[in-house]
């Protein structure tokens, strides 16, 4: 029985890149959603949650259509970079970001809404511009929501493979993530390998999460 760990590292890389990029997008977007008075707000909120309701492979299917070289988007990407969006790591990241969008936006928006604007107002009077006070006050106060968003995105990207499989094409070393590998073992009735890989994945994820939660606890601040 050989256990190939390549997919594990690929998975971690994908999850990390997706999480970081998605957080960067979700932070200002959630902030805007939390405080906008636009009448479109509920509609935008509903759309944001939609990537969840389609089965992952089906969402992957539509993303595949969207990103294939024949489409406007995919074609533009090919002519810009010379590479296709599908079956590439970049494509995987984009697909994962879209699928995990609700996990990032929802908790962050909730945290921003709940924190209120009192301290942010104080920051305004102390000379902090919009971006400054977002980073120095709003975001740290919504820290717990940020953590939740990051954990859900990270864990979900590790575990989900429907979208990834479709858009990534399961190319070893390029787009074959560990969840696909485990899935394959289960499908081909090689349960021993599946158990080992699952155990590795679980232990690894547990360690990562534990480190995150322990350090969160240390940095914890009562916001009362």
């Amino acid at each position, binding site marked *: 029985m050989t256990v190939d760990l390549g997919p594990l590292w690929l998975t971690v890389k994908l999850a990390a890149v997706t999480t970081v990029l998605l957080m960067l997008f979700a932070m200002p977007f959630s902030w805007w959603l939390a405080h906008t008075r636009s009448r479109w707000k509920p509609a935008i909120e509903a759309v944001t949650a939609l990537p969840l309701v389609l089965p992952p492979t089906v969402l992957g299917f539509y993303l595949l259509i969207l990103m294939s070289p024949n489409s406007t988007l995919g074609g533009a990407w090919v002519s810009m970079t010379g590479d296709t969006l599908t079956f590439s790591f970049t494509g995987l990241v984009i697909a994962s970001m879209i699928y995990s969008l609700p996990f990032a936006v929802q908790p962050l928006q909730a945290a921003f809404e709940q924190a209120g604007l009192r*301290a942010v*107002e*104080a920051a*305004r*009077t*102390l*000379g902090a511009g*919009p971006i400054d006070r977002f980073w120095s006050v709003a975001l740290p106060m919504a820290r717990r929501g940020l953590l939740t968003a990051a954990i859900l995105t990270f864990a979900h990207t590790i575990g989900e493979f429907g979208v990834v499989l479709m858009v990534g094409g399961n190319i070893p070393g390029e787009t074959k993530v560990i969840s696909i590998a485990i899935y394959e073992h289960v499908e081909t009735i090689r349960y021993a390998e599946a158990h080992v890989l699952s155990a590795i994945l679980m232990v690894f994820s547990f360690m990562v999460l534990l480190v995150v939660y322990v350090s969160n606890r240390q940095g914890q601040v009562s*916001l009362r």
Partner: protein
Amino acid sequence: MNGSEGLFLTIRLARPGFNLSVLARLPPLGLTAVFGRSGAGKSTVLRAIAGLETEAQGEIRFNGTVWQAGQGRMPAHKRRIGYVFQDARLFPHMSVRRNLEYGLDRAPRQPGPTVEDVAALLGIGHLLDRRPATLSGGEAQRVAMGRAFLSRPQLLLMDEPLAALDQPRKAEILPYIEKLRDVAEIPILYVSHSVAEVARLANHIVLMEEGSVVLAGPAHTVMADPTAAPFFGVREAGVLIEATIVAHHADGLTELATRGGPLYLPHAGRAPGSVIRVRVLAQDVMIALRKPEGISALNVFPVTVTRIRDGDGPGVLVSLASGGLDLMARITKRSANALGLRPGLSCHAVLKTVAVDPSDIGAGADGPTG
């Protein structure tokens, strides 16, 4: 006063059941006290000036710069204000030190107090490494004040900053606020429910009621205005007089020259020659027909009765003139009758020396205002 100097406001703001409509011109220097009952709109005015009330309509100009006009607004963070909120609003995720430094880090580099100066003044030096959640109510309020002082403001907005503090602590902080006002020449808008604080600090007073300004003007005028009496309470009626320090005597008394003659006070803590402001409460002034002998009161002025006003209840308010000095005495109707007081009568005003509280001695005249 230059036409464009100072703070000019025309603010309107409608809320269900509450309409704010304030028109005011405030002096470019000195402290303006905003006084009024709970819910009168004091905090709302401060917030509008700071640029935090996005729904406030109207115009705000400060020292020639337009802060708000029509739809145009200068963002709050560019206004260079220091705001002490009614609730402390510290940043819960930062240490006290980082809270104090927050505004300082974002202000233009210019000389001013350091974190250590302000921490020592406010007695929060031992709290610098603590988190706001562990502070007591008064400690949090002091940190909030320090944070505003350190942000190198060009205008200070203070919303009941001392309400949560004990008397000795207040007594330590008040002189610093006076220093900001006079030495650093930062205009201050100061909301307070304490007449003693207002009387001591204010050069200018704005009285608010149900969203409108009912009276505004130099402190001595407003404090002597009968319209203002219900705001301050009967006990606080009195006059503000200006006096020059002549000498500090060995027994701890300071001799002052007033337009009505010499006045003795407990040590006033300023160099001879300084002009200071003294508040004399009407209830601390007695009237005697003959110059009293053998009594403990040191300050006796020959005066003429100028006016007698009936108040509610058993008291009357007697206005007295002594040379250029005006005084007020609050006595009972019974006494007024027994003494046969009437306008024009010559008599003596007796003022117990120590009836003048050191905290009622403000520095400087309300010069900038006048």
